[in-house]
């Protein structure tokens, strides 16, 4: 392949998200406007018809995710984007997508909550909601970018994971990452690996829609492909038909979890800076990770042995990676734009290996490098 030297382009985070979706093969967008996610919808309104895809503005967020799931069942890679209040409304359908194993991507550009909160201000308050917002036991995948490029990249990956595991994937983005502009170099069209949901290889007569092919992820035809099957939010047997039999229910729930958890090793996505000899490690994500990056640099300049782990996947929680960090650091610092959400998880997996320190801000403004630097200074010993 001839390598073309590509030039930087100036993109807003939300624009980069759309670019990522297009590159991943997204061909259906349904949404409802809400600050600070609206740009994604508006750009999609322009881009979808150009790419032969479908854009539709629905009557609310519930309808938006309903349409997205429908379109995905009809074979299109589909997504929607919203913010806190709309994300709360989508919870029932997120559970449906999980249960019926319908790939789809949901962007939540977080704004300060609870409730209407501060629509234009910064927050990372929906981290736990993204994991636990819908009722009942369910696994979920949640990605969190910290730069415009990463928003692009993780959007592509969100589609990939969603297709690979037949599961809804959530992109949890803060207002800074969504609205800032950075220069990015977008990769060439074919340079990224794009994954597609597994398709049945057997003829329709042999197709058993929810039987485990070994990977935990049953092949998925599109409605209209000739594989007529039944999709439901009820507990179902391998054919998709409702069941209350414990010997059918239990394996289903088990499979929903293990299809993802068996790949935990593959799902440790992070960037590490200077962690090898770090006595204090910062664990951060989203725009806070950027502040932490600078703070760590500044601290190193001063001779402090500190490092940074920037999480790109928030859920499933990277127990493995974090455990390693906790084992090697004396202290970890978890700065967050909430009252402490990921820090709870860090504590959970900590098992008193080291001291977990938090730094929290909930007034709608960013955590600055100086604040992290100061905290690092305080706890460094």
């Amino acid at each position, binding site marked *: 392949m001839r390598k073309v030297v590509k030039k930087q382009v*100036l993109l807003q985070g939300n624009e980069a998200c759309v670019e990522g979706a297009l590159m991943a093969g997204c061909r259906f967008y349904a949404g409802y406007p809400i600050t600070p996610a609206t740009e994604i919808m508006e750009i999609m309104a322009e881009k979808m018809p150009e790419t032969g895809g479908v854009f539709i503005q629905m009557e609310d967020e519930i309808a938006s995710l309903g349409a997205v799931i429908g379109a995905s069942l009809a074979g299109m890679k589909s997504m929607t984007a919203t913010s806190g209040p709309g994300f709360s409304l989508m919870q029932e359908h997120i559970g449906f997508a999980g249960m019926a194993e319908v790939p789809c991507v949901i962007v939540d550009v977080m704004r300060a909550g609870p409730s209407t909160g501060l629509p234009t201000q910064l927050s990372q308050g929906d981290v736990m909601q993204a994991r636990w917002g819908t009722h009942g036991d369910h696994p979920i995948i949640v990605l969190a970018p910290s730069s415009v490029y990463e928003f692009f990249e993780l959007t592509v990956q969100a589609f990939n994971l969603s297709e690979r595991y037949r599961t809804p994937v959530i992109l949890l983005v803060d207002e800074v990452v969504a609205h800032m*502009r950075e220069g990015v170099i977008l990769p060439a069209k074919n340079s990224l690996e794009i994954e597609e949901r597994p398709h049945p290889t057997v003829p329709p007569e042999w197709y058993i829609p929810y039987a485990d092919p070994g990977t935990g992820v049953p092949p998925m035809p599109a409605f209209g492909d000739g594989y007529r099957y039944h999709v439901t939010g009820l507990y179902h047997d391998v054919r998709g038909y409702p069941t209350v039999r414990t010997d059918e229910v239990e394996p289903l729930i088990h499979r929903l979890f293990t299809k993802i958890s068996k790949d935990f090793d593959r799902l440790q996505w*992070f*960037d590490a*800076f200077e962690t090898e000899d770090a006595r204090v490690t910062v664990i951060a994500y989203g725009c806070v990770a950027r502040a932490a990056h600078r703070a760590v640099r*500044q601290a190193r*300049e001063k001779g402090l042995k500190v490092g940074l782990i920037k999480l790109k996947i928030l859920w499933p929680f990277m127990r493995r990676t974090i455990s390693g960090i906790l084992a090697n650091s004396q202290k970890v610092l978890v700065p967050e734009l909430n009252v402490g959400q990921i820090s709870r998880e860090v504590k959970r997996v900590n098992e008193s290996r080291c001291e977990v320190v938090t730094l929290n801000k909930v007034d709608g403004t960013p955590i600055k490098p100086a604040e992290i630097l100061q905290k690092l200074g305080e706890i460094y010993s």
Partner: protein
Amino acid sequence: MSNTKVSSLKNPRYEIRIAGAGGQGIILAGIMLAEAGIIQDLCVAQSQSYGPETRGGNSISEVILSNTEIDFPQSTELDVLIALTQVACDRNLPDMKEGGLVIVNSDAVQRVLWDSLVSIPFEEIARKVGETRAVNVAALGSLVPFCPLLDRRALTRAIASRLPSTKLEANLQAFDKALRFARRAKGRLKYAGITEEYEI
């Protein structure tokens, strides 16, 4: 995943903020500035904030320009503040780097307690060129003499790419006028530490 050693902080990083009221085209100005950075192949990060009142409230737009990767994409200490209203000036002064430069819109800002200060009649300039909405582009013009990383031609190209052609002419006039104002003002500046730093 990667475990990188972070590079030194000794990289020039230039933080510019434009502040004013909603509707003054401040965010667009920030984007043009960032776009100029892109044209020059610099690393850039542009961000903005505004109140819930998108219309009429206080609005700011900032651009970080750098030769190397930008870790923190928002300002930490401003190298330059351009304030288009008195409120904007008052609110944003505390974020200045010591020795940084404040450029104010002399048509709207009367009181400023800052050493390194440049006053330019942006509104007057805009009116003169017959395009009252050119205040934001004029503001960009005033930056050129002070910001060593910034190339004038890149900036005008960026401006051109984001304006309808019918408005371009008047805007570029405003840009030039403000630039000339700024050049003259620079001569008279008592102290302009930050700019010197890079002006070699």
